[in-house]
């Protein structure tokens, strides 16, 4: 307290001197990656850009007099950029805004606009969705920079999607608390006492730092928090005064803490052993997975678990969980749930929905699917982290054994315990299950191809199976990745394509908020470009794309190649079906569900729209016979570095 009182007595001149002394100290106090970055940079080039630590050191030995109307010393936002660099944040996705002007200028000038690079977005919601898609490929967070109040309001839905999808994202928002130093009018309208309150229900942590040191510590903490399972978005408020005023640290050196990651929790060994015992002696164990593939290691561990039991794995497609050409892989699962005697749910969002059928009918009939005596086991982080209000925790499902743990981390232990627990007289049975599954896989493949042929193969508009098969034919020999979900195509890509690598699929939006698809695909494509120049395919719902088509411009502007195929069923098709259901329940006319749900009159020409936004536009294509040529042309252009959109007019699903 005494120290604080002393600071208030410091005059402006003495204050600057204090900064100078601080600078000298900071130059040797910056630790961890921040210091490493500065050191590397100095070694590589004699004309390197100075860091804030260098600037402060300079101030220590020279009397700096700023020209009238200019800032004396380095702005605080330069130090903020140092912190971002220390965390190796590659991209800041943002729609430019006055409340972020300080850090914006620091990123593009002081920071050299590299690591982080400022990515121009055309909607705050898109900016956050891009971080969402980026994380799921890169495995680390990017930052979204939003304007105070209105920008964060725009971004809120995308934050909720990331929350529901257990995705890392660092959302930053500009704000100026001090009314006495705020501009009147719009800047004050856009200021808020508690920025985090807007999205606190669906962020894991937020902070509003009031000093640069506070900022450094909180930003490193934010990174750590967002990357600790369950991964969730976090919010950092960037106080405008801190951004824009000269660096001031109250006579103490500014220190960027070293980032360390948190080892995620594995399940309690006794509980895991009990789960292993139940699974090892089961006659028909079934594994259901949603987001087990948090990293590539999750895929490997899941395969090992499944093979230890020769148990089928029902994939709910929250992530790339398991190679879909594995003999134990199941999409949908048929009646496996009904036949199982032990059901193991791994990182399920909705265990209740997994084991219950619930009709969307007047009666709302609900049926518990497992047979009597079937045992349910859950492993996941859902029981360890739950919040009120928003209902993404789904209905409560009673289980026989709930293990609160990160499933990916727990799987090796579980697999080992299972191997130990399998009774000797049960091994032949397990081997037999495997043989049966292998034989069933070939039959299922044949049946599925027959279904594809029967899926309106030659129809116009184009069928989902035909489109999926035509795309696969053009990409199967490339280093490809699907950067969209495929549920609107009745999962035909997952039925026809061969997914083997973790990066080849990123799951869905999590919160089912529309407007996610296009920007998330662009964010994922940023990561793929960075990783290995992979050929990104985005099968894009038409209605979703029109929430923020400006994401196409972002891809074009930043030279991110991606093949977008517009799944153009010319409707918010799910809503048509909902309206049809209402009309049928009420039986007073069933011919109006197209009103308010279709995108007709005029039809949108997505190829022209894409061209206007810097893409190669192809289509509209209505005849499936034209698909092969169009897709090949698109793939060739993407391989040349172009973003491409092919407009395909399609069947509803």
């Amino acid at each position, binding site marked *: 307290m005494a120290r604080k009182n002393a600071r208030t007595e410091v005059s402006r001149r003495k204050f600057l001197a204090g900064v100078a002394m601080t600078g000298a100290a900071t130059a040797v106090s910056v630790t961890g990656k921040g210091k490493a970055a500065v050191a590397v940079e100095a070694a590589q080039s004699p004309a390197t850009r100075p860091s804030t630590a260098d600037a402060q050191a300079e101030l220590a030995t020279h009397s700096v007099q700023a020209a009238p109307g200019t800032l004396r010393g380095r702005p605080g936002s330069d130090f903020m950029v140092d912190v971002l660099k220390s965390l190796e944040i590659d991209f800041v996705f943002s729609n430019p805004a006055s409340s972020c002007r300080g850090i914006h200028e620091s990123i593009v000038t002081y920071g050299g606009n590299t690591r982080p690079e400022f990515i121009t977005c055309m909607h705050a919601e898109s900016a956050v969705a891009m971080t969402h898609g980026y994380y799921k490929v890169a495995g680390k967070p990017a930052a979204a920079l939003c304007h105070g109040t209105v920008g964060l309001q725009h971004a809120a839905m995308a934050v909720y999607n990331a929350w529901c999808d257990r995705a890392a994202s660092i959302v930053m928002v500009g704000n100026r608390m001090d009314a006495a130093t705020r501009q009147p009018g719009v800047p004050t309208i856009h200021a808020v006492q508690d920025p985090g309150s807007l999205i606190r229900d669906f962020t894991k942590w937020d902070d509003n730092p009031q000093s640069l040191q506070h900022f450094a510590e909180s930003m490193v903490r934010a990174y750590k928090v967002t990357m600790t399972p369950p991964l969730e978005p976090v919010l950092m408020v960037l106080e405008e005064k801190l951004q824009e005023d000269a660096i001031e640290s109250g006579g103490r050196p500014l220190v960027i803490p070293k980032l360390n990651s948190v080892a995620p929790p594995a399940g309690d060994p006794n509980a895991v052993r009990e789960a292993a015992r139940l699974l090892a002696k089961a006659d028909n164990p079934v594994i259901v997975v949603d987001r087990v593939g948090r990293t590539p290691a999750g895929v490997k561990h899941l395969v090992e678990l499944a093979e230890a039991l020769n148990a089928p794995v029902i994939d709910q497609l929250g992530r790339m969980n398991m190679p879909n050409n594995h003999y134990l892989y199941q999409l949908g699962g048929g009646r496996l749930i009904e036949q199982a005697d032990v059901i193991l749910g791994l990182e399920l969002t909705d265990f209740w929905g997994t084991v219950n059928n619930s009709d969307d009918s007047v009666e709302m009939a609900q049926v518990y699917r497992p047979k009597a005596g079937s045992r349910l086991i859950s492993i996941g982080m859902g029981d360890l982290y739950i919040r009120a209000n928003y209902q993404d925790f789904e209905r409560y499902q009673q289980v026989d054994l709930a293990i609160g743990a990160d499933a990916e981390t727990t799987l090796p232990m579980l697999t080992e315990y299972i191997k130990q627990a399998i009774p000797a007289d049960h091994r032949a049975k397990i081997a037999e299950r495997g043989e049966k599954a292998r034989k069933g896989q070939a039959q299922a*493949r044949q049946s599925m191809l027959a*279904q594809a*042929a029967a899926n309106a193969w030659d129809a116009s508009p184009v069928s989902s199976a035909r489109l999926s098969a035509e795309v696969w034919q053009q990409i*199967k020999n490339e280093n490809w990745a699907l950067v969209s979900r495929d549920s609107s195509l009745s999962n035909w890509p997952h039925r026809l394509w061969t997914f083997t690598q973790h990066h080849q699929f990123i799951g869905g939006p999590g919160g089912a908020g*529309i407007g996610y698809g296009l920007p998330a695909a662009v964010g994922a494509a940023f990561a793929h470009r960075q990783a290995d120049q992979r050929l990104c395919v985005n099968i894009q719902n038409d209605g979703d794309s029109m929430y923020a088509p400006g994401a196409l411009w972002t891809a074009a502007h930043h030279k991110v190649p991606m093949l977008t195929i517009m799944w153009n069923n010319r409707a918010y098709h799910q809503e048509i079906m909902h309206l049809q259901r209402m009309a049928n*329940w009420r039986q007073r006319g069933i011919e109006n569900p197209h009103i308010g749900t279709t995108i007709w009159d005029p039809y949108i020409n997505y190829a022209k729209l894409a061209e206007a936004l810097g893409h190669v536009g192809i289509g509209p294509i209505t005849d499936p016979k034209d698909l092969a040529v169009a897709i090949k042309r698109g793939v060739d252009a993407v391989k040349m570095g172009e973003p491409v959109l092919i407009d395909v007019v399609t069947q509803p699903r």
Partner: protein
Amino acid sequence: MRKTFVFLAGSTLSVAVFAASSAFASQTAAPAGDAAKGKASFERTGCWQCHGGLGQGGREGPRIASPVPMAWPVLSTFVRTTRGNMPPYTEKVLSNQELADVYAYLRSIPPAPDFRTIPLLNGMMTTASTQR
């Protein structure tokens, strides 16, 4: 904001329909129907929304053509009385004749080709090899 339909609803429905079909398939012949009018009714009353323009099925509705997987008595009874995910179509919104026309339309849709005759699909038998 948007509720996702239950993926399994379609398969559950199919099972129910097939079960009923085996019991009643040969009881009554279908009334005369006009396939062209049936196509119009199929589109006007929204059948295509879940079952696809050619009755090929999709995530929310099972395949109901190529071939039609149920006999007339089963289809007509089901359409009138369903209480599950598929909403009912009473005579008030779809007359018996219109329903007969829809049935005629579904039966007029050509059978699906054998996937082995489609090079793109035939080549996929070997694409997804069994892991390990």
